[in-house]
């Protein structure tokens, strides 16, 4: 391995840029989260630091660093420090397989706008997501606090439960593409054949699971203030707490990027041929990268929108939804998709599948669910 080869430097530069974009977006997500919350609750929100308060993330970062870094006396010191580090590490690792664009050639060096193009791409995402729970679990246990432990255990069981439905939703996508590589999945959706049109049900399942995996409201039971003080990060202060909160925002952005990759055509956008013909390949690819980031940011907005709209679930409701609701639903989705591919009409099968599901639910509701008469 030559550390100074063009290939290595190109990869290193690209990974550095992706990290910078991810961290910047995560920092400004905190600002927009507060602005959106303020808008929805008819308030003004942060407006002191700089014009419109746009320096608020910087002020928050300074505050986080200046605060006392406290480690509880009876905690397990090394694991207490390892917890937030692991959270951050796993949050940043997922972006390695997200394809941000096709190849571009700058100054004779060909950049592949993807960290690693392995033929198990989507399994990589899945593996790292399933590791993400270690940071919370270790941090919660090492705090030596019962509330933290309860929060950590909630996080672990929640993540494992929703991974199953998520995996089954991905299987329906894999039936279309016939490959695990994220690049192949995106290339199969070029020119407007986005998977969302064929997989509306699968997308809804995936979206709900993404909410649960990111520990976002309405599934933020690991940090449920009314029951657990602060949940798994009760004992954390200073930048260690900052890492946990930051990891959550990174996860939001990355899961938005993964959803855009799987269901919304990745770096595909309307008029890509026109831009390529007018301005050349490089510009078209960079506009595509912008399109992917834009789609991911749209999902970040949906995450925030839902947070300030829906109340939190109860824990048994959460488990009931995951095991008794989403897993049968995603199995139904897999069967419908397979049937649609078998008869050669995946689009019709997807629509008919959703219509049949809604009809079935309505009939079941009318026949078997006893209504309370007010």
């Amino acid at each position, binding site marked *: 391995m030559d550390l100074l080869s063009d290939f290595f430097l190109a990869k290193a530069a690209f990974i550095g840029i992706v990290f910078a974009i991810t961290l910047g977006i995560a920092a400004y997500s905190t600002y927009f989260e507060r602005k959106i919350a303020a808008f929805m609750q008819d308030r003004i929100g942060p407006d002191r630091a700089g014009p419109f308060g746009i320096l608020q993330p910087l002020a928050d970062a300074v505050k986080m660093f200046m605060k006392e870094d406290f480690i509880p006396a009876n905690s397990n010191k090394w694991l207490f420090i390892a917890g937030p580090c692991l959270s951050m590490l796993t949050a940043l690792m997922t972006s390695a397989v997200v394809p941000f664009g096709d190849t571009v050639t700058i100054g004779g060096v060909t950049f592949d706008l993807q960290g690693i193009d392995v033929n198990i791409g989507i399994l990589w995402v*899945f593996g790292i997501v399933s590791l993400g729970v*270690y940071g919370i679990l270790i941090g919660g*246990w090492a705090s030596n606090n019962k509330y933290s432990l309860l929060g950590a255990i909630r996080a*672990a069981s929640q993540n494992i439960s929703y991974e199953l439905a998520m995996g089954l939703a991905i299987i329906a996508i894999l039936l279309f593409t016939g490959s695990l590589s994220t690049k192949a999945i995106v290339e199969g959706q070029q020119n407007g054949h986005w998977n969302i049109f064929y997989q509306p049900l699968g997308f809804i399942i995936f979206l709900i699971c993404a909410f649960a995996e990111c520990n976002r409201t309405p599934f933020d039971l690991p940090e449920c203030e009314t029951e657990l003080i602060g949940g798994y990060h009760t004992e954390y202060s200073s930048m260690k707490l900052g890492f946990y909160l930051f990891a959550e925002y990174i996860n939001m952005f990355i899961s938005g990027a993964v959803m855009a990759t799987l269901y919304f055509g990745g770096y595909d956008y309307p008029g890509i041929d026109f831009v390529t013909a007018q301005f050349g390949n490089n510009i078209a690819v960079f506009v595509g990268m912008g399109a992917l980031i834009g789609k991911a940011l749209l999902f970040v907005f949906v995450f925030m929108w839902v947070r300030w709209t829906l109340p939190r679930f109860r824990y048994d409701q959460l488990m009931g939804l995951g095991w008794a609701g989403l897993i049968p639903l995603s199995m139904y989705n897999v069967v419908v998709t397979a049937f649609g591919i078998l008869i050669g009409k995946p689009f019709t099968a997807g629509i008919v599948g959703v219509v049949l599901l809604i009809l079935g639910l309505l009939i079941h509701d009318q026949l078997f669910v006893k209504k309370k008469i007010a």
Partner: protein
Amino acid sequence: MAISNIWYFLSGLTLLSALMVVLAKNPIHSVLYLVFTFFCISGHYVLLNAQFLMAVNIIVYAGAIMVLFLFVIMMFDLKKNQPESKSSLTKLAGSVVAGTLLVLLIALLRKNNLPAPSEVNFKSQTGMVETLGKILYTEYLLPFELISILFFVAMVGAVMLGKREAGERNF
């Protein structure tokens, strides 16, 4: 860096972390070392060009089974449920048995001079998902289906065990 150097480094790390699983006093540390051991084994899969096995090893073992292990150990009161220390005689017997097994295995491997894989017949696609899937669904179809039935039975069993009987307390 030559690939054999990576192999030596990874093997050393694997053995060290596996040893720490046994030697660590705190069960939580033990489990975390075990997770690390699984990562090292996944690294070996990458060196063998078996990416699919690497991903599945991480998802299933490190991502699901070990989380449940950690989960159960965290729920214990470790101060109350500390296993009593074994007597030195038991420790000695254990070391002798394990050492004999190690010597036997090494002797077996050295006696059986395994042939080195030839570079001519080497297929780089052997460990890939496509090849693995084709073999599983043609040559080994019956065992594969039987395993799925086994898993199904285990799943039904787990649901039956976890199910609340009528009239039992909610919590």
